[in-house]
């Protein structure tokens, strides 16, 4: 019974959201507001169940050894709430500063390695080697020249004129446009996929007229 009610609620709100395609209406607005409210409510509940209770309240209430140390991050976290009180709002900067500092310290070296150094390494490849298949050679040439051309396009300290900067930046524009085209194609596919997912739900799970 609860599953049936859930299906009907989901179906009606799906239709409500898609009704926006015709024009904005109260059902759409209701669905839009509810999705934000319900998501937030769910997030709070699951954060309490998965984090606050087992990792903070339970250890402190059971008197676990060293559990009092948990009060330090708990108090630091509570300082966020001081933003709502103008007189002591400045205290909320401390947890933010802690998070930013710790986040930078932890993330920066590994992010540099994962997203910059590894990518640089991957673009420093031989264009041709003995025994290399011709399609791999073409792929390597396109990749290396394309990367260089796109970088030249974003080099603004020199006018984009002449063989190196002029032609290079023009090729760079083409490379970037091809990239945008591929992304746009994938985006169309993605949006249609989401529609298909909802139609599968409406026709299958709700109305049972398709498998």
């Amino acid at each position, binding site marked *: 019974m609860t599953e049936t009610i859930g299906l009907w609620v989901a179906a009606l709100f799906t239709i409500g959201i898609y009704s926006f395609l015709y024009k904005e209406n109260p059902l759409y607005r209701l669905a839009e507001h509810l999705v934000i409210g319900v998501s937030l409510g769910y997030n709070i509940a699951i954060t309490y169940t998965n984090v606050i209770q087992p990792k903070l309240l339970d250890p402190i209430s059971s008197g676990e050894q060293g559990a009092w140390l948990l009060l330090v991050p708990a108090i630091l976290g509570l300082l966020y709430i001081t933003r709502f009180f103008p007189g002591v709002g400045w205290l909320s900067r401390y947890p933010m500063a802690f998070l930013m500092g710790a986040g930078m310290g932890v993330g920066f070296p590994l992010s540099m390695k994962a997203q910059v150094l590894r990518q640089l390494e991957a673009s420093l490849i031989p264009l041709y080697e003995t025994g290399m298949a011709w399609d791999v050679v073409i792929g390597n040439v396109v*990749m290396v020249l394309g990367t260089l051309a796109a970088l030249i396009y974003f080099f603004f300290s020199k006018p984009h004129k002449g063989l190196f900067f002029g032609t290079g930046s023009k090729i760079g524009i083409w490379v970037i446009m091809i990239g945008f085209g591929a992304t746009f194609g*994938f985006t169309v596919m993605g949006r249609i996929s989401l529609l298909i997912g909802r139609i599968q739900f409406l026709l299958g799970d709700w109305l049972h007229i*398709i498998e």
Partner: protein
Amino acid sequence: MNIWEKMLNVDRRWIFLLIGIACVVPFFNPLGLPILPSAEVMGIYDHIEGLGPDNAIIVSFDFEPGTAAENQPMSVAALRHAFARNIPVYVTSYWPLGQAMAAMAISELTDESLEDYFKYVEWEDWASIRDQGIVDRAGIEEAWTAEGNTLPENARGWVFEGRDIAFLGYLPYFHLVILGMTSSIASQFPTDVSGTPLEEMPIYQDHKSLRDIDLAVTSAGGSACVSWITYGREKIGLPIAFGVTAVMATDYYIFIQSGQIVGQMGGLRGAAEYEVLLKENGYNKGYGKAFIGMDVQNIAHLLIIFLVVLGNIAFFAGGFHKKTKLKGRR
């Protein structure tokens, strides 16, 4: 207003209606167009195919319902592959709602009303076998069937909670959770979502940290997958596979080029390719939702291409490329 101008000023709601029809009709008249698996999807499949009951993987539901149409089928496909090969799986989530999506995926694969489902054996139900000290997968199944349990006809296999799967769920600041799991999974998830202590689970005995994990499949609707690369791959060399939405796919091909991931499923198409591989290799009798959806997708794409071409014909035939703006509503 001439015909070309009328065409360019058509009410966009007619286009929405046409796309809607194009996305409904093929469900009733499927074309069954072939889907050929790409190298990047086969990379993931081959990697999992090389694993067995002594290995372990993570399937992370790093998306929310907004992208479930794309991410859910690829997560289900990866889980099915692991269950069918008795590979232990840790299930995690980067986002709160991802935990609910993971629960839905497990329910789908263990739904007794469906063909080819996996019979779920709850933690308490096989306590007697654990008490006997049996820990290896084959031994557990042998002891379980010796107790008089028979696999239903329409089931593909057993899934023992705590041995074949540990549903860990969601934790906030998940990138730091990944970092923590490189030292110990139990330090981040002392229990699974049901409250069962991880350290008591057979899956945990040989797979205590990400260093003991052979693949992390992250099905992501946002940048969560990069955290797996940054904190898993680059710190300890954890093999990573991406399942990403189509919108994100082009951004993440670079990680294939650099060899940082074993493969990538891009959008519904990537999920459909994985479903084809599962069907062709006998892991599933039928296709999943993604494969059926791709048939519809093909028709919708043809319609969009037709409309783009038609719009361009109207634009150039009407001479609008020489004018600064169109008449009418635009």
